[in-house]
């Protein structure tokens, strides 16, 4: 039981970057843009979040205010991820470039961008690697939201506390984004318009919806959300130190999770929990498989999901109809 609680806890922590990536890509794809550059935007967000705090501390002294630290990290990673998505949007929406290739290019560019700035900032700092102060790191630590639960004598309550109230702030923020997105997409006019743009831009255009604006905004905000996932990687998983190649395929798993979550933000919560769990299961459930092969489990599982969903292919849950295709009003 204890082991299971620990596995769940670790799965949530490991699944968070996947959650952000999946949510960002769902929002993007809802507008009909298929941005394959999640991996790249995550790298950009990772360096964005870390360097915002790094430079703040460099010029204003060590970070004392944890709230400010969190806000800066989220803002920095969001903006950098959004910058990547802006490049993508400009190329695909305005300049009508192929979405697949632009996304792949964004991955190449973003990976270089993250590693490049991570290394160069590191090489110019005193310690020769890029890191933030212990005070700032504390803002991203896990803590007990409800101390009375953690201090209770009951093992059940302690377990409950750990499973639901024992995380860092970015976890709750991610869950909040998922819920807000689910609500906006389902119940608001904006959500309806956005879905219309993704399903049939020509119809949306005829109905007076500004297709380009919706596509731009959804893609850029989506990219920003992916960027926060990157910030989570550099600040929580790598513990505030720049590690080269830190994203390491998580962005790609997120792209696959969008299919697993059938374009539903609420189901993205479940999907990222499962895949977060798969990526750390080796430490909790030994199966007698060599470590190196056990580590490929999330990738094998992704393939299984891809095959399963494509063989099954229910119509109601399918991808937005116009996803991956550019919309030219003049060539309707």
């Amino acid at each position: 039981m204890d082991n299971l609680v620990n596995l769940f806890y670790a799965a949530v922590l490991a699944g968070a970057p996947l959650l952000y990536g999946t949510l960002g890509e769902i929002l993007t794809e809802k507008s009909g843009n298929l941005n394959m550059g999640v991996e790249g935007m995550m790298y950009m967000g990772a360096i964005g979040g870390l360097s915002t705090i790094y430079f703040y501390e460099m010029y204003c002294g060590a970070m004392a205010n944890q709230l400010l630290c969190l806000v800066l990290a989220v803002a920095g990673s969001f903006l950098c991820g959004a910058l990547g998505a802006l490049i993508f949007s400009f190329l695909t929406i305005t300049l009508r470039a192929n979405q697949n290739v632009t996304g792949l290019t964004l991955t190449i560019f973003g990976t270089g961008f993250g590693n490049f700035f991570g290394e160069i900032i590191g090489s110019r700092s005193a310690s020769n690697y890029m890191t933030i102060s212990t005070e700032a790191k504390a803002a991203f630590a896990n803590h007990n939201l409800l101390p009375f639960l953690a201090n209770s004598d009951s093992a059940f309550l302690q377990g409950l506390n750990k499973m639901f109230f024992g995380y860092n702030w970015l976890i709750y923020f991610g869950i909040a984004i998922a819920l807000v997105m689910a609500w906006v997409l389902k119940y608001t006019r904006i959500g309806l318009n956005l879905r219309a743009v993704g399903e049939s831009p020509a119809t949306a255009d005829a109905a007076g919806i500004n297709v380009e604006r919706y596509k731009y905004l959804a893609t850029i905000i989506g990219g920003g959300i992916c960027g926060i996932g990157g910030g989570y990687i550099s600040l929580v998983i790598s513990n505030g130190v720049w590690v080269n190649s830190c994203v390491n395929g998580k962005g790609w798993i997120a792209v696959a999770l969008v299919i697993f979550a059938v374009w539903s933000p609420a189901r993205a919560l479940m999907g990222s929990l499962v895949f977060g769990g798969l990526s750390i299961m080796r430490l909790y459930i030994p199966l007698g498989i060599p470590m190196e092969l056990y580590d490929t489990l999330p990738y094998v599982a992704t393939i299984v999901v891809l095959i399963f969903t494509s063989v099954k292919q229910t119509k109601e849950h399918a991808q937005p109809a116009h996803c991956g295709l550019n919309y030219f009003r003049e060539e309707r």
Partner: protein
Amino acid sequence: MTEQRIALPAAKDPLLRIVRRPPVSQSTAWKIRALALVAALLTTSLLILLLGHNPIAVYADLINGALGTKTARIETIKITIPLLIAALSVAITFKMQFWNIGTEGQILAGGIAATYFALFWVDKLPRPALLLVMMLAGCLAGALWAAIPALFKARWGTNETLFTLMLNYIALGIVKYLQAGPWKKPGGFPKIPMFDQAARLPKLFGVHIGWVIAIALVVLVYIYMKHTKHGYEITVVGQSKETARYAGMNVSRIIIRTMVVAGALAGLIGFLQVSGANYSLSENTAGGVGFTAISVAWLSQMNPLAMVIVSAFIAILEKGSNRIQTTFAIPASAADVITGTLLFFMLGCEFFINYRIIFRHKEKEVPQNG
């Protein structure tokens, strides 16, 4: 929504509008691309300038680091070989609008198969036979690794981009496993032993003969794509699957066959890398070649002859970026940033080849076209 309708300006032309150009001549198209290249280089120069270095000095050092000495030139050619063949492999699948980004994994699969024979058959076969068997095994393994996603794509439309990408990580996991366990060299570090002399490719003019194979493949792929039925079928499937079906082509078979060819090319790279370049298999055998090859293929507009120049260009960038790391303390990942920027500009400039922007006040000077 009502307010948006009202907000539309009545009977007034938009400030600028976009119309499709009649096809421009090849030379105009390449002029626009050259301009984009210059713009991209200026953008990266700006970045270098912001870092406090002189861009011209950095670029000069970069080129010097890649081509300055004979050793450097050999190294640059050794980077070019896998890149060029990988670009050929990527191009034939991209031409089919099959987004194969699993070249990396296919290279590793080929490398694994070739390494098996290099390690365990070295005393059973004479050298030419051994090398031939290694090569065939590499091609076969790459082809099989590529055939898996192709089968699922052809049968159920499974997303090939993610499928091929996930197979990269799995192939890498297998290499790491072999390295740490079954094929490990006795001793401390998880490493696969160096190959025996007999399993190493011979050299010609200082570089392993992979370069001869690469040049031969450029010609072969050019002919394959331009002048054979297969190449024609690939183009048609890429343009429109419906058209291909209507014309009586077996789309599933074309997809699988093309991926098998692409995978065999990638597997061949695996063989060349383990037998010619590194004399062993490691997790760096593919080293990002599969991804960089996408850039090369796209920058070359899928033209095999242009790929020779572009892959050499990217190889110079990669080799030279190691030099600027030591001279200017600019990280080698700068090569990725420069490649990415270049590609962004190249993708963007296609717009100006295909479309024309008409401003409102110039309206009357421009003849209407559709």
